[in-house]
């Protein structure tokens, strides 16, 4: 909640002191930051009558000096160049510049140089440099996410850019929260270590005056971890509403693009799934598919009641009441058809890809033991014609991650079978995954078979039985959060940066996952926060993954590693 509120407050402050008609100019990243928390109707209330991208604004030559320009952009060198040109040939009456992160002095100098007409009224830094999609979940929407898997020697410039963007995002989050954290990182990940150290340098040395906030009794904790410690979660199929929509259809900035599904009315081709604006979604986003079905049916019944009473207009009072309630009725109708469309579409996909069968095996692979039975199950599914290529790949990957060391012969057989059944499969991808995220590379106890305590817990769970086979998986993040809550996060595995130290438990924890988060993990964080354990967790990542995106990142990284090794 606090991140969403911070971004909204920043935007409100930008717009409130400037009177008159305004035009808001954004770049390709800040447009996501703003659109996800602020609506068009709210902008109109603030007298912002035009919203443009900084790329397209130079094209037109119309002068609109009755408008005041409010720029909200990232301080990248490309944006500064575009801004230079626009300041030298100003189209608007006044220019108010807001940057979403720290400006370098040279950049200010360049801008001052090009402002010959003296149209710039203010230059401010407002640190809303992240996409705050849910109350406790943010992302940086980075395009070249795969770079975290590549060793530094292959593409040092690219990795530096990646690391800079992440550090900028983390700094913005803490500036918005007005806190300076103690930083820990996952020991086995070079990328995480680098990011942790550069963040510490920024917050404690380079800009230490800016980060010098009022100290509270316990400093918050920033924990930088690597996706490769838990490669299982992004590969699994999901059955809770928000995660399922992202896995099967795709959720981008809280929008779902349904254009690929033909024969939908125009206003349902793209829909918004936001817990802030949609009360039904807010209460159902973490529920599993069966419960959602029942709740939607209830909602449809309620709506049909209302619709029937609307058709039953007898007296004048009824007519008046109908006209009064019409906007509400229209909104309800739109909402009901949106959810019905989504659930229908997802049911169709589940049916077509036989996901009930596939997912059961996936959950078994992730949660329960038994190598022999697992091998049988996977082989059967590989032979099944109706299982799609991507599902076959996922099954083999999950098997390989779990039984990497047991029975290499059978593992090899699975690889061969996969290559023969799936023509589009790029050979060596599973092995690449094992190289990146195999059992030697991982810190955490992913399958609960290292730590004695975890083994005992798993056995107890097996005896008790699970409520729902399809949602039995707990992401590794859950265990990490539990360790933090108990104050038992091991220094050996997650060391502090430099000479940072923390006494006792932190009250606020920001976990940043390099490589991306998943909606299953954000659900885990939200549920953990709801237990009021005294610690507030916030989760962030470089992107929000589903299995398609994770596999794409893997392929991209594999391609670069191959070409890199050829060069070396």
């Amino acid at each position: 909640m606090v991140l969403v509120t911070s971004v909204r407050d920043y935007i409100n402050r930008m717009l409130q002191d400037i009177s008159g008609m305004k035009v808001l100019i954004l770049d390709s990243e800040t447009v996501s930051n703003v659109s996800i928390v602020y609506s068009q109707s709210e902008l109109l209330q603030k007298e912002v009558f035009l919203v443009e991208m900084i790329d397209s604004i130079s094209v037109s030559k119309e002068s609109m000096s009755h408008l005041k320009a409010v720029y909200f952009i990232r301080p990248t060198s490309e944006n500064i160049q575009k801004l230079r040109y626009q300041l030298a040939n100003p189209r608007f009456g006044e220019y108010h510049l807001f940057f979403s992160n720290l400006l370098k002095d040279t950049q200010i100098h360049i801008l001052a140089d090009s402002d010959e007409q003296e149209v710039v009224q203010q230059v401010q830094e407002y640190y809303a440099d992240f996409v705050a999609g849910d109350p406790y979940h943010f992302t940086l929407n980075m395009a070249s996410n795969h770079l975290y898997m590549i060793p530094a020697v292959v593409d040092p410039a690219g990795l530096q850019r990646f690391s800079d963007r992440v550090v900028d995002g983390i700094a913005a989050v803490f500036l918005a929260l007005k806190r300076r954290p103690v930083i820990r990182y996952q020991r086995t990940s070079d990328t995480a270590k680098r990011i942790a150290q550069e963040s510490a340098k920024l917050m404690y040395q380079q800009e230490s005056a800016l980060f010098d906030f009022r100290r509270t009794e316990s400093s918050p904790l920033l924990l930088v971890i690597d996706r490769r410690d838990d490669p299982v979660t992004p590969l699994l199929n999901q059955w809770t509403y928000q995660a399922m929509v992202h896995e099967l259809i795709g959720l981008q900035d809280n929008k779902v693009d349904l254009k690929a599904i033909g024969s939908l009315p125009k206003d349902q081709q793209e829909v918004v799934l936001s817990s802030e604006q949609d009360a039904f979604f807010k209460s159902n986003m973490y529920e599993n598919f069966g419960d959602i079905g029942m709740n939607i049916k209830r909602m449809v019944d309620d709506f049909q009641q209302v619709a029937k009473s609307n058709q039953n207009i007898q007296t004048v009072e009824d007519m008046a009441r109908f006209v009064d309630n019409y906007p509400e009725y229209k909104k309800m109708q739109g909402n009901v058809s949106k959810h019905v469309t989504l659930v229908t579409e997802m049911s169709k996909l589940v049916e077509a890809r036989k996901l009930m069968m596939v997912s059961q095996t996936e959950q078994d692979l992730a949660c329960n033991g038994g190598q022999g039975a697992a091998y049988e199950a996977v082989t059967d599914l590989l032979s099944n014609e109706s299982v799609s290529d991507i599902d076959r790949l996922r099954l083999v990957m999950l098997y390989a991650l779990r039984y990497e060391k047991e029975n290499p012969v059978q593992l090899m057989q699975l690889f061969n079978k996969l290559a023969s059944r799936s023509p589009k499969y790029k050979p060596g991808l599973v092995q690449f995954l094992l190289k990146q995220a195999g059992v030697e590379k991982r810190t955490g106890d992913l399958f609960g078979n290292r730590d004695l305590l975890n083994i005992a817990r798993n056995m107890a769970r097996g005896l008790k039985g699970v409520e729902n086979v399809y949602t039995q998986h707990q992401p590794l993040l859950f265990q990490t959060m539990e360790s933090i809550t108990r104050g038992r996060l091991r220094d050996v595995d997650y060391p502090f940066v430099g000479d940072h130290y923390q006494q006792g438990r932190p009250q606020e924890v920001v976990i940043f996952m390099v490589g991306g988060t998943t909606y299953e993990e954000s659900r885990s964080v939200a549920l953990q926060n709801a237990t009021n354990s005294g610690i507030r967790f916030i989760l962030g990542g470089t992107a929000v993954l589903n299995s398609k995106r994770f596999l794409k990142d893997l392929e991209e990284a594999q391609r670069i590693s191959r070409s890199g090794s050829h060069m070396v």
Partner: protein
Amino acid sequence: MATRNRTLLFRKYRNSLRSVRAPLSSSSLTGTQSGVGPVIEMASSSLLNPNRSYAPISTEDPGNSSKGAITVRLPPAWVDVSEEISVNIQRARTKLAELGKAHAKALMPSFGDGKEDQHNIETLTQEITFLLKKSEKQLQRLSASGPSEDSNVRKNVQRSLATDLQLLSMELRKKQSTYLKRLKQQKEDGVDLEMNLSRNKYRPEEDDFGDMLNEHQMAKIKKTEELSEEREKEIQQVVESVNDLAQIMKDLSALVIDQGTIVDRIDYNIENVASTVEDGLKQLQKAERRQKHGGMVMCVSVLVSLCFIMLLLLILKEIFL
């Protein structure tokens, strides 16, 4: 949330760069004036900078005359229309507050007839409805033709005013309906009270003469007739107001954004605008091309040349004959 103000640093850089730039630019004037150079430098620099809307009249260096001379152009004409509409909306809002007070006053028990309160309420309601209808008609005028950035601004101004109008009309309806409900309740209570009184008076006289009974019955019938007439008039009023405002709401609902839908997303609006602007541009280009190669132009030019030739022939005929 933390922010940092860089305006001071920016202004410092800008000022220092300006003083560096000004002597440089005036030294680009013709070299023959180098003797009196410094004096002219000072003069021209003071002309160039302070007053932004003042266009310096230096004739020697036309290149410099555009610097520092931003002419603040007047906003386009439709801005006046939009300002008029918002003024009307403001006026309607104040009248609505007055109406609320008048309603409250009319509902209070009073000794008078209540007729002038009624009259006041009616006039106020009519004025407000008139203002709303006028604003709505003016709103349609704001619709722009052709894709351009200006048309997007117009569309957004339209939407914002439409939302305000819709909220106002809904408020008006709500006020009216609560007033009518309370009024009806009061009347019913009043009628019940009267009925009770008359019944109490009636009973002890039941055994009286038939004439008295008839009189009472006649009085009761007349009263119920009056009541039903009044009820009908009120219902008529409600129907009229429902009709008026329903029409306004229908027109407005096309313009107003539904909150929470995709249309309310900023990024969706940017993408759509880009595509419609592009489409519009393509259409314009197509039309231009078609017009150039169009048969019409050919026909016209052929006909005009024929006319000239005929005229020439006529003149020649006159000359030779």
